[in-house]
């Protein structure tokens, strides 16, 4: 027989002035299964708690109902208190007679009636409570970072510096991402390579960091603290263990291929390093273009390599490892503007280029060694038009959102042109200039002082006539059509999530918004966490942003990872779903409604009509279950149930008032 204790709290006069607490206690004392009922002035106070502890000991209580304020206020307090008694902390129900009774009703008689009902419901429920025990899961103290751009590098370094092992996975043959393509960074005009390559080298050499380039993650199972990740190592055809990176192979390779790192502005070889400062500084073979791999002819590199590192038989490889935390830093791409903007020539004019192409043109290590030359004829452009918001803020053609960084790098581009080309003219077509950042507005001011002409209006058409690119716009500030005859046009195109990033994120159980940006757990309060515990995100994977914000977010994600890895074990809530396997039909309805993919269908040995058989039933991953109960509402039989809110408990609550 249950021995329930019921404590009715006065909460000073908060409850007692409206609810006749003594009458409630009296009524509670009459309820089935109640051994002890009393009131208390301030139940949450130390003395109030002492009084409960005493009553538990004295009356040998095995469960407790406290009628007081909302459980959202003191449920934890009272559970903690119960750990110091003989009662399991989960043998507790709270009747909310303050927020949902005394504070909202004025009729004392009726409020007292209602308080009795609420206590009755709580007693009915507590009678079906079972002791629950938190369990702990070990934390595998190792972090996986997906994406080797500046965000991934920063996060990896921060975690590694704190003493934990990190695996940094990058699908390209080198880490570095987009930042290493850039020439200078706004607003300080630091050389981008000068500040990013040391970070790359540091990451490459760090004893706690394992670099895995030309790799992608292909599967993730498990849960916070214990993710099993399968990593696909794409064939490189070069043995990086023995290769010294001497470069002979690359020098002699006869096959020339469009260099995508240089945004198609130059050529590279079929065996190549992504760029001179690549980390690791070792080449790979581009299987799409290598004539040996395509037609079995050539093999020059293999013949020349003094160490025999070339392996044309190289195959993809799968490596499975366990990680406690995952950081997604999958980055961005630029939209394919040519497809979206036929009115800008749709890519047919060589001298209409993207912002990233301009970065390569102006970059000292780029195809022109930093001389701004038109791709069409190599001439130095005297008049340059910069068009902002190409694909951004344009839901009809591309993206509805603002890409955030373009206003500033457009100003930077204008500044660089005016600085490098004497007597040049720069026209910047803009819709709004957005400069919310330290030193940003000042940089914009300076660019205008340099002589950049800002024209408020979106360009409608760009076409070539007489060797000039005619840009037609409106200066909306004077309300007149304007045209500029330019030598070169730079389109500051919208960012979009890196190709394949939503698929990669989905592998790790992270969802993306309608544009494909990965979704954070809460836009304000949990900006680097995701709905999947133990998976974090940073950088442009989450949305367009500039380098300072990216790096800040990477460090924030690292801090979250460190908070997790610092623990040896994680305590899990015991209020999770459990399956009554013998009754489960294996229909999978629960699996379909589970928001955190905590339920999987597994084959288990079972008895059926006296025979040993293998059946498929639902299984809950206690590390993933978030305790929402969607599964138990979906289950027709009721064989998956939520501990703490079981079907029986809720039915008892419903029935409580009507039992004689």
């Amino acid at each position, binding site marked *: 027989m249950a021995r329930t204790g019921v404590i009715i709290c006065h909460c000073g006069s908060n409850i007692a002035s409206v609810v006749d607490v003594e009458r409630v206690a009296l009524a509670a004392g009459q309820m089935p299964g109640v051994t002890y009922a009393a009131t208390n002035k301030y139940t949450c106070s130390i003395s109030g708690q002492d009084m409960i502890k005493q009553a538990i000991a004295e009356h040998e209580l095995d469960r407790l109902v406290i009628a007081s304020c*909302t*459980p*959202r206020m003191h449920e934890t307090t009272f559970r903690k208190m119960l750990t110091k008694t003989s009662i399991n902390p989960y043998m507790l129900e709270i009747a*909310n007679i*303050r*927020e*949902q*009774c005394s*504070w*909202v*009703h*004025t*009729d004392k008689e*009726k*409020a007292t*009636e*209602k308080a009795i*009902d*609420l206590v*009755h*419901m709580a007693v009915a429920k507590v009678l079906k409570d079972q002791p629950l025990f938190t369990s702990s899961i070990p934390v595998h103290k190792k972090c996986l970072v997906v994406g080797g751009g500046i965000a991934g590098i920063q996060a990896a370094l921060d975690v590694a510096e704190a003493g934990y092992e990190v695996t940094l996975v990058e699908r390209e043959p080198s880490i570095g991402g987009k930042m290493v393509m850039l020439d200078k960074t706004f607003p300080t005009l630091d050389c981008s390579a000068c500040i990013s390559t040391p970070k790359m080298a540091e990451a490459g050499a760090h004893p706690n960091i394992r670099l895995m380039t030309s790799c992608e993650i292909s599967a993730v199972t498990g849960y916070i603290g214990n993710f099993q990740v399968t990593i696909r190592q794409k064939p490189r055809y070069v043995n990086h263990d023995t290769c010294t990176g001497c470069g002979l192979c690359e020098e002699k390779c006869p096959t020339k291929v469009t260099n995508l790192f240089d945004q198609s502005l130059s050529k590279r070889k079929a065996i190549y390093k992504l760029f001179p400062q690549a980390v690791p500084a070792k080449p790979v073979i581009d299987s799409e273009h290598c004539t040996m791999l395509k037609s079995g002819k050539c093999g020059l590199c293999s013949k020349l390599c003094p160490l025999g590192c070339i392996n044309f038989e190289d195959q993809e490889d799968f490596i499975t490892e366990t990680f406690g935390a995952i950081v997604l830093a999958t980055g961005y791409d630029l939209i394919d503007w040519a497809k979206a903007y036929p009115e800008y020539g749709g890519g047919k004019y060589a001298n209409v280029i993207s912002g990233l192409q301009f970065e390569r043109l102006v970059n000292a290590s780029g195809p022109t060694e930093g001389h701004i030359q038109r791709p069409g004829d190599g001439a130095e452009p005297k008049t340059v038009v910069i068009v902002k918001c190409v694909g951004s803020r344009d839901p009809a053609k591309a993206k509805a959102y603002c890409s955030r960084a373009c206003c500033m790098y457009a100003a930077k581009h204008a500044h660089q042109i005016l600085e490098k080309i004497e007597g040049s003219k720069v026209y910047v077509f803009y819709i709004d200039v957005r400069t919310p950042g330290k030193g940003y507005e000042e940089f914009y001011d300076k660019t205008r002082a340099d002589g950049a002409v800002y024209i408020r209006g979106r360009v409608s058409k760009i076409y070539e006539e007489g060797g000039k690119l005619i840009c037609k716009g409106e200066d909306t500030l004077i309300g007149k059509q304007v045209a500029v005859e330019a030598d070169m046009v730079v389109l500051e195109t919208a960012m979009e999530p890196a190709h394949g990033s939503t698929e990669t994120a989905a592998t790790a159980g992270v*969802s993306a918004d309608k544009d494909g940006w990965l979704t954070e757990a809460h836009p304000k309060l949990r900006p680097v966490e995701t*709905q999947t515990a133990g998976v974090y995100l940073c950088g442009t994977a989450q949305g367009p942003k500039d380098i300072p914000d990216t790096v800040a977010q990477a460090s924030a994600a690292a801090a979250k990872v460190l908070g997790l890895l610092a623990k040896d074990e994680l305590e899990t809530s015991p*209020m999770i779903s459990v399956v009554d396997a013998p009754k489960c039909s294996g229909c999978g309805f629960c699996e379909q*409604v589970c*928001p*955190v993919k905590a339920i999987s269908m597994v084959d288990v040995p079972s008895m059926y009509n006296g025979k040993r058989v293998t059946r498929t039933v639902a299984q809950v991953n206690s590390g993933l279950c*978030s*305790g*929402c*109960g*969607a599964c*138990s*509402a*979906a289950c027709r039989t*009721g064989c998956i149930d*939520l501990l703490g*809110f079981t*079907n029986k408990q*809720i*039915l008892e*609550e*419903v*029935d409580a*008032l*009507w039992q004689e």
Partner: protein
Amino acid sequence: MARIDAENWEPKILAFCCNWCTYTGADLAGLNRMKYPDNIRIVRVPCSGRVNPQFILRGFQKGYDGVLVCGCHPGDCHYTSGNYFTRRRFLLMKRLLEYAGIETGRFQARWISGAEAAKFRDTVLKVTEEIRALGPNHRMKEADDHE
């Protein structure tokens, strides 16, 4: 509980409120000392997606005059998607109950966020009045005339 004679009949309403939004909204109504009728009895559930439609049938069967299911606004679910399933379940259940001859309005569902204390109060006011107008639940209540 004591049986109440017909003259003094007051509707009794059962409400399932999700812990993260509506239950919090109801607490906020209390914190702001808003006043609403005392006819409502709230059952706290982690998510409106936890509410099995059979709980509704049980509520009517046992004698509640009205049943209300409340949760976060679609899109704001603490568990991401729970209330989208809730919406589907109860769109269907509501129609089934009406088809079964249970008066329209006895069962209702509402989205009320943790900040919408006033909406919670107004909902309780409105639902109470609507159910008062419908009169006691005779159609689905366990009664003495059942064997």
